């Protein structure tokens, strides 16, 4: 059977969600899968919602993920988790959330209505949500920007892509000066999710 894995990467412009979607595509392609990837972003360079769709399997047609089918939604920010959680397959999928908040800078009074409780809310709706303090973990590793790579480390424990393909993707795509830190960040994410009990 041609099983296709659909992934939705969500974040705020500047957080590097597109980069980790690409890393996942490269890893999947290296593992021998067909892949399609597409991104949707607004006109602003920074500060807008960024969504990247990745689908891999023996043969992939549509690059677009349909709401309700994703094996995983990977959100680098809590509000973005809420915005894209409906893409996850409610029975079998997982929502991976970086417990990090970015208040929309272009909405006045946004801080007063920001949905701080989005993770609890999604769990109440019956979704399987795993939350990690990836930004804090990345900061502890020495560079807060690596939160994105910690998140795909966690994602890697949920997908049929071999470790060697992930490592190959990191080495192919990342500049050598950032490689060592990111390999550590990836491993940190892997361990974090294995420790985390599954389910909400």
């Amino acid at each position, binding site marked *: 059977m041609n099983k296709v894995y659909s992934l939705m990467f969500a974040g705020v412009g500047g957080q590097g969600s597109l980069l980790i979607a690409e890393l996942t595509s490269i890893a999947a392609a290296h593992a*021998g899968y067909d892949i399609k990837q597409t991104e949707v972003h607004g006109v602003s360079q920074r*500060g*807008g919602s960024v969504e990247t769709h990745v689908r891999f399997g023996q043969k992939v047609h549509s690059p*677009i993920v349909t709401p309700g089918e994703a094996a995983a939604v990977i959100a680098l920010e809590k509000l973005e988790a*809420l915005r*894209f959680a409906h893409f996850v397959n409610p029975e079998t999928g997982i929502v991976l959330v970086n417990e990090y908040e970015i208040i929309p800078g*272009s*909405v006045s009074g946004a801080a007063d209505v920001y*949905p701080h409780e989005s993770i609890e809310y999604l769990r109440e709706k019956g979704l399987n949500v795993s939350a990690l303090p990836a930004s804090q973990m990345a900061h502890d590793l020495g560079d807060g920007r690596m939160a994105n790579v910690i998140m795909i480390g966690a994602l890697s424990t949920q997908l049929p892509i071999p470790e060697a393909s992930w490592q190959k993707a990191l080495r192919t795509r990342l500049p050598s000066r950032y490689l060592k830190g990111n390999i550590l960040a990836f491993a940190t994410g892997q361990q974090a999710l294995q420790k985390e009990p599954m389910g909400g």
Partner: protein
Amino acid sequence: METIQNPKSAIENRAVRELLLGNQAIARGAWEAGVTFVAGYPGTPSTEIIETLAKRYPDTDPRWSTNEKVAFEEGIGAAIGGLRTLVTMKHVGLNVAADAFMVFPYAGTNGGFVFISADDPGMHSSQNEQDNRYFGQMGKVPILEPSDAQECRDFVKAAFDLSEKFNTPVMLRTTTRLAHHKGLVEVGPRQEVSRREFIPDPRRFSVPIYRKALRPQVEERLEALREYAETCPFNFIEHADGKVGVVTSSIAYQYVKEVLPETAVLRLGMTYPLPAKLLRDFCARYETVYVIEEGEPFIEDFMLSQGIANIKGKDLFGVIGEYSPGRLREALGLGSIPQPFTEEIVLLPRPPMLCVGCGHRTVFAALRQLKVTVAGDIGCYTMGALPPFEAEHTTFCMGASIGTAVGLEKAGHKKVVAIIGDSTFIHSGIPPLIDAVYNSSSLTLIILDNSTTGMTGAQPHAATGQNVSGQEAPKLNLVSLCKAAGVENVTVVDTWQRKEITKTIRKAVNHKGPAVVIAQGPCVQLPEMKYRDIPPYTVIEELCTQCDACFKVWCPAIKRTNLNFPVIAGNECTSCTVCAQVCPTEAIVLAEGK
């Protein structure tokens, strides 16, 4: 753009596969086809084609042209001169190039001529949703529509052969989803194509009186293409069984394969001219045929005109916006799609905004304060119409700010300002400026000169001093240009000097006769700005009186602490100094160290 060492492909002895964007695949296909001349103007979703060619395949001789018409005309010259030529543009770019496009097919080409029309269903980054297949039909040229990244590469190569075989320009139509999706693409080597000899022939290339003689040839060519369409490799049938069939094209084909995997499909890769017999024969086999095409009912209307009546199309699937597998599923009654979570919780939007530190911010703050009527243009600065500035009142198309301002002035708006970016001004702002002077307008033109084509991701242009490859190029002098157009009052001002900007614009608005203000300051997304080694600004709370003056510059990097003090996000601040300029107690200073 990574080369994948795919273990499976090695087993199957397949060619090297690369993970490519649709646009990168087009660039690759053009390179493989032996293209030796490329011209275009940046426009989403077409920009990455020339960027990729400049970076990876410079032997295709790519360039950014002043606008799409110039690019097209340069392309005509190169092609009749004997080179394989590619011209790229977004859908509305073809409106600009239309004058050249509409006459070229009469003459026919020499070297292969392929142009990309990158349409934008869903209007992700465009002012309209026009379906350029009608343009191809009006110009009477063949239209190819690939369905994925692999076909983007394959079809470009095939388009050059088609162009030379039928002696015609060929349109390759993509859409945002095709241009901006990535897939694995099998690639091959470059084919070296030598220049074809150019034989000057006034009967083909000049003297309008001969055009009448060329006119029948256009119809003869079209008839030959119609015949070719019936058996061409771009159109194919899959799964012939069942009571239902589908006719589809472009990216919608992929959605059909997701949603109706076992259904009979006629995939049309060449959508003009359409294969009448193939369509009639296919539809005769089924009770119902769904016509699934993004955009307008281009194929559907043709089928109706051929007397094919057992079809369902736009009534079911709609004309507005992008298609998706989910949209097809719902339209076909195959199930509903989960909606975003909005019950009992606020799904706060993140509307687009001008970047932190963007030089346009001070200009819009001044315009808002001066309460003038502002005619805007195409670029990032359309966001000046949004809160908090709300200081831009019209936007139509490239270069329209100046003409619109002249008209608004005639309609009784006394203080009218036109606002345009440097790249857009060069693209199509110069003729209307000459017109404004010639017809005694008193408008103020503000050129937002950020030394790049910002909105499409920072491409150089004629006034940046760089060409597409980053090499030094002659630099257009905007001041001299405006003066030559007859504007005597031209002022250049540093866009981050808040007071100076306001004062200069006020003076220009009050000036009798036309005036130009050039607000200069590089785009903060340019590498030289992004990677500057300057510390961010910070607030000294002991000096802060909580007067809130800094909040009134509307910088998104300035947040509020629990104790009501401003705090500047150090990782966002670009050190533009504007907040420090307004602080009455000098409480905002450069952070020490970094």
